Structures are given as C-alpha cells and as structure tokens.
C-alpha cells in the first residue's frame, strides 16, 4: 500500500512515518505540508491512499478531497483535530473513506489505515457516543421509489450511480459529478434500491463492494 501524507505539522508526519515503518505492507511514498502541488505529487508517486489534514496553510482542504477523488484513484483518510461530527459528515460526503481524530491512540490510526486501504469506511471521533450517532445517521433509510422495478437489470447509468454510492458519496456529490440534478440522483437511487433490494447507505457500500464496483 503506497501512502501519501499531507499535514503541515512535521511532528505529526514524523509520528505517522514512524508508525508506518513497523508495518510491512505500508510505505510512505510522498509527503506534503500544503494543498498547493499536492495533487501532482499524489499522481507522480502513484499513491493509493492519501492521509489528509483538514486545516492546512492556504485554506481548508475539504474541497481538495473532491479534487483528489476526481483526479486520482487514491482513497482518502482524513486525520484531523476537528472532532465535530459536522466535519466528518462533510468530509465523507466529499468522498473521503475514513475520518479519524488526531487524539486517538496510534492503534486506532493503524486500524483506520488498514480499513480504508481495503475500501472499508472507517470513522473514529474519539468519542464513542458521537461516533455511534454519526454511523446511525449515515445509515438512515434512503428514499424509496414508488414504481416496481424489482427483478429488472440495472441500466448503465444506474450502475454508475451505484458505483458512486458504493464509494460512500452523497447524492449531491454524485449529482455534481454526473451533471444531473440531485433529485434525479435520488430517483436513480430509489430505483436501484427497488431493483436490488437495498435500503441504507451501508447496504449500498456493501453491495457495491461485493459486486466488485
């Protein structure tokens, strides 16, 4: 697993590198302390996983998550000071697959690296109650369709939407990427839900992964 670290605190990066050095299956291939130029570095180093801080000099890096997802195939793990669930929700909606608060013990961070590199969603806000609550809200039932499509095959557009849902992206982000209205995406989502019998965001993530999307 090729990992890139983006954090403006050299101590944080040093700690991470030390942590990773003990792992045989993870190597740090690039480091950056700001968003400027980080994309090129990620592409050149062919990073498969980017560990990203949310507060960097030169602006908040939340928009950069979407850029990374669009321009590279790297998975994104957010490692930040911010323990407010709103930040986690925004980061996951932008396309991050993991969200870990920096005060978590190193073992949690290792677990997060492993999980995210295998394509599994990982969240730890260093507060069990809030983390559980966030999981629950992420898994709220989606809008259900009123037409019966069950049993029919997915169209190519629906497959595309399913693939993106599987990455944990929100309707809004998908709408933006496919240049559709959020309402249309919701309709697609409802149709897919009917056709393959899925309900929650977690179902979508699991199904998409099982299908190898």
């Amino acid at each position: 697993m090729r990992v890139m670290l983006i954090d403006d605190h050299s101590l944080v990066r040093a700690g991470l590198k030390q942590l990773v050095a003990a792992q045989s299956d993870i190597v740090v291939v690039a480091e950056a302390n700001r968003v400027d130029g980080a994309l090129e570095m990620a592409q050149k180093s062919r990073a498969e996983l980017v560990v990203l801080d949310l507060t960097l000099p030169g602006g908040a890096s939340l928009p950069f998550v979407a850029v990374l997802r669009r321009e590279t195939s790297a998975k994104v793990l957010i490692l930040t000071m911010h323990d407010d669930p709103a930040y986690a929700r925004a980061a996951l909606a932008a396309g991050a697959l993991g969200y870990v608060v920096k005060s978590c013990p190193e073992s949690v961070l290792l677990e997060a690296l492993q999980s995210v590199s295998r394509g599994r969603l990982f969240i730890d806000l260093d507060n069990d109650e809030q983390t559980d609550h966030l999981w629950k809200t992420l898994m709220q039932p989606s809008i259900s369709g009123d037409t019966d499509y069950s049993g029919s095959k997915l169209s190519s557009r629906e497959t595309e939407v399913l693939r993106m849902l599987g990455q944990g992206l929100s309707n809004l982000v998908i709408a933006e990427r496919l240049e559709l209205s959020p309402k249309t995406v919701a309709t697609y989502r409802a149709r897919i839900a009917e056709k393959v019998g899925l309900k929650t965001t977690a179902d979508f993530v699991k199904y998409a992964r099982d299908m190898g999307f």
Partner: protein
Amino acid sequence: MGWRLTMQRAVSPPPWVVWGMVLITISLTEFAVMVTLPRLLPANTSRVWDSIVDAILLTSIISPLMWWSTVRPLQEAARLRERFVSDLIAGTERERRRIAHELHDGLGQSLTLLVSGLRSLSDLVRNDEPHRRVVDLARIAQQALSDAKQMAMGLRPSLLDDLGLANAIQRLADDVANHEKLGVSVVATTVEGHRFLDEVETAMFRICQEALQNVCKHSKASQVAITLSLAGDHLRLEVSDNGQGIESIRRSPTSGQLGLIGIRERATLLRGQLTIVSVVGQGTRLIVELPAQRQKEETARCASC
C-alpha cells in the same frame, strides 16, 4: 519649527453649542428679515402677503445655514460612526479568528500529540505503577486539550468559516442543549449548503448567540426554536421561546444591557431589520432579516491567512 495639531472638535461640536448656534441663527435672521421687509414691499400690502414673503425669505436664508452648520456635520458624524463601528466589529472578529486558530491548531495540535503518545505509551507500559501514572498523565493532557478546544470554540468556532452558518448554529444549539435545562430545536433546511458573505454569516451567528443567551438568562422558557431560512433575497433568523416574555423594552436601557442594542446595531449595519414580538406570559420571538449576499465559490475563507 515643528507644529501642533489639536483635535478636540473633530466631527461635531457639543450639543449646547449647536443649540446656541441654531437659536442665534434663527433670531438674527428673523431680525434681519423684519428690518428689510418694509423696504422690499410696497406700503400697505395685506397681512397675508406680508407673512408669505416673510416666510419665504426666512426659509431661504435659514435653510442653507442650517444645512451647513447642523445637518451636514450630523450626517458626517453618523457616517463616521457607522464606519468606525463596522471596522471595530470586523477587527474584533478577525482577531478572535486568529487567536482561536492558534489555540486550536497550535497549542491544540501539540496537546493532541501528547495525548495520542501517552495513550499509546500506556499500552506498552505493563508495570502496574508506571502504567497508572501514564494513564493519569494522559487524562490530564486530554483535559488540557479539551479546554483549549473549548476556548477556541468560545472565541469563534472554526465551523463557521469552514462549513457555514447552518452548521455553526446547529453546534451552538447542541452546546446550549447540553448545558442548560432547555429544549433547543434547529430548522435550517433551506440554507444548508449555501454560503453567504463573511459579514452576513458572522452577524447572524453573533445575533443568534446573544438571542440564545437572553433566552437562557431571562426567559425561564422550556423550549426554544431556531429557524434559519431564505425568504426571497433575505436571510431570516427566528429565535422563539415559550418563556415569560418581555414586559417592555426601554429606549435607553440601564448600563450593561447592551444585548438587544448590539443585535439592532449589527442588523442595521448590514441594512437588515430586527423585529421583536413578545406576549407576556407566552414567550418572545426575535426575528432578524438581512440581505442574503451569497459568497462566491472561490473565496473560501481561511483562518491562517
């Protein structure tokens, strides 16, 4: 040889001077007009005609004088005051943002490394006594970290800059609900995902903060509902409680009572409007509407720059 600049009367003279000037101007003008009137008019014109010419003369002499001596300085003073106040507010916010950022991402970052390191260390130290000491130290560092975060939040929540007004107000409501015996609900569906001009978001946030503080301090309410919505091209905030209501709002409040005045001031500076509706025994509704200037996508704010 050098020079001296004395600035005692920079904008407007003290009120009694203005008052005296007005009285003297009117008396002198009236005197002059009465003296010249018989020479201007042919003998034995009617009383009505007399009065009309008198009025016209008096007005046309006094109005420019009053304009230059009173109205213009007052206007100037008002304009200057408005600029001063809005600069002061902007400066305070900028400074608060900077300190909050230093606390959260400077001090907080170091404490975070300490917490995370001590926690990991405690897993390695198996010996009973050292293990306990490390766990204690980790707890102390954790407390210091959450204090630093709390202080930063109190100065200015980074949420407001990073994720916008709706998220910041939601967090404010959560904090109040956790600390007071008060049910707080937030509805902000129509503004979620929208970003507005920095001044607008800051003003709305501070207004909401003060309104909530008033509800906690004075209302004895059990419920408060916060509604943030887009009404046409206006951003609208309503904070309504089911408390005891306000009996009357004094025009010049006793010292210290500056909350509502501050709200009105912030609203007027942004060409907005404040409405307070209160029924004694049933509760208070505070409504603020500000012109909703959208923020351009590119100009995302950042604390460190």
